[in-house]
């Protein structure tokens, strides 16, 4: 630390008898307390500051439709239903839920595995895509809007993800799956209420797998 310089005493020479030279006082100040305080304040501000600014995830929900006739119909082959269960488990099936004695298309995975499922399904649906007039219109609209990916604007129009969180799913699971939609650029997805059949299946799977 900066030292206190009391020097100057050595350089005092007596020029002669009776001549007293005033003692030179050093102009150096001890900086130690100031530095101490400075660092104390730095530590305080580092701890109190909030560097992570919160961000937001937009969520748009549809209006509740009373009449089933008004509901949008989806192509069965392009639908992927994802259910969120307890302990961060994810369940999914493609198309319609099939349950019979030999087995069913109801599968379970985790949040790590669901991305590959989504990617695989998306590729599969896109490979079946046939270009038609409505598609051309969609592309034109996207182009007019300035979408740089307008050529791809309608390749995945049949791909729909339905998200159904169960009562045991946490808010984090819900946000994570919505995030997964953004990460994999799923254009059409909906969050709907889970069906009793699915709840029963999840429960059964949880019991066999011993998930608590």
């Amino acid at each position, binding site marked *: *630390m*900066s*030292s206190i310089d009391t020097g100057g005493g050595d350089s005092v020479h007596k020029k002669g008898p009776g001549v007293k030279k005033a003692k030179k006082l050093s102009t150096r100040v001890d*900086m130690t307390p*100031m*530095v101490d305080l*400075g*660092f104390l*304040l*730095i530590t305080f*501000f*580092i701890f*109190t*500051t*909030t*560097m*992570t*600014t*919160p*961000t*937001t*995830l*937009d*969520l*748009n*929900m*549809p*209006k*509740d439709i009373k009449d089933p006739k008004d509901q949008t119909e989806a192509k069965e082959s392009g639908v992927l239903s994802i259910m*969120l269960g307890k302990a961060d488990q994810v369940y999914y099936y493609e198309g319609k839920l099939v349950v019979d004695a030999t087995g069913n298309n109801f599968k379970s995975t985790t949040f790590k595995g669901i*991305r590959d499922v989504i*990617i695989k399904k998306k590729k599969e649906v896109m490979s079946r895509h046939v270009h038609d007039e409505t598609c051309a219109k969609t592309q034109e609209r996207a182009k007019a809007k300035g979408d*740089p*990916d307008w050529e791809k604007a309608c390749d995945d129009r049949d791909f729909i993800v339905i998200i159904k*969180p*169960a*009562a*045991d*799913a*946490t*808010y*984090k*699971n*819900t*946000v*994570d799956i*919505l*995030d997964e939609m*953004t*990460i*994999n*650029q799923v254009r059409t997805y909906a969050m709907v209420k889970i069906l009793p059949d699915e709840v029963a299946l999840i429960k059964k799977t949880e019991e066999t797998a011993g998930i608590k």
Partner: protein
Amino acid sequence: MPSVKLPRKSTDTDMTPFVDVAFLILSFFMLATKFKPPEPVEITTPGSVNSQKLPENNAVMIIVDSSNRVFFSVLSEKDKSKFDAIIQDVNSSQSLGLSNAEMANYRQTFAVGVPFGNLKQLLGLDTKSQEVLKVPGIPVLDSANNQLFWWVAAAKKAFAGEKLNYLIKGDAKSKYPTFEAVISALKRNDEFKYNLVTALDDVPNNSELDLYNRKNLK
């Protein structure tokens, strides 16, 4: 032979640049610091890859904490009269019989986490006592008595003609049914666009979004 005398070197170093840097850092932190607004509960928000910034004014913030309690708060720094409009609307629609002093206290109340029945008690306390008061949260799960609906309706009326954002700040551990009930309270008010408050996460490498960003955000 005369012994070799090594010249004594001073151990003192010049601290000036060090002190300069320290104070530079200090002034940076002082200017960059934004103190956290008081919050009734500690919330750990989940992460998301979305990097959109949070609107901090003209917003209704609905907080769901880790034990599924729901809080309602209004963010309106510029126009404090919105608070009065909201509490007056709630007071009359629920016939709570709040006194003027209690209604004025709503301006200082950061978030309400009590059923209508306990509102008089909450607003009768000063800010310090409100913080320590154990609150049960606004009842939402019973769809016949979703009280959040009334709060949102009052806020919607108070902010009529202006843009109002709906922020939902949920704790990562809170359960989905509460979130669903909050959504349904907003839906019943014909509000379908929400902002979920999240912390920023990195975009996974080579995912479709990553490729899209790399291609288009150059």
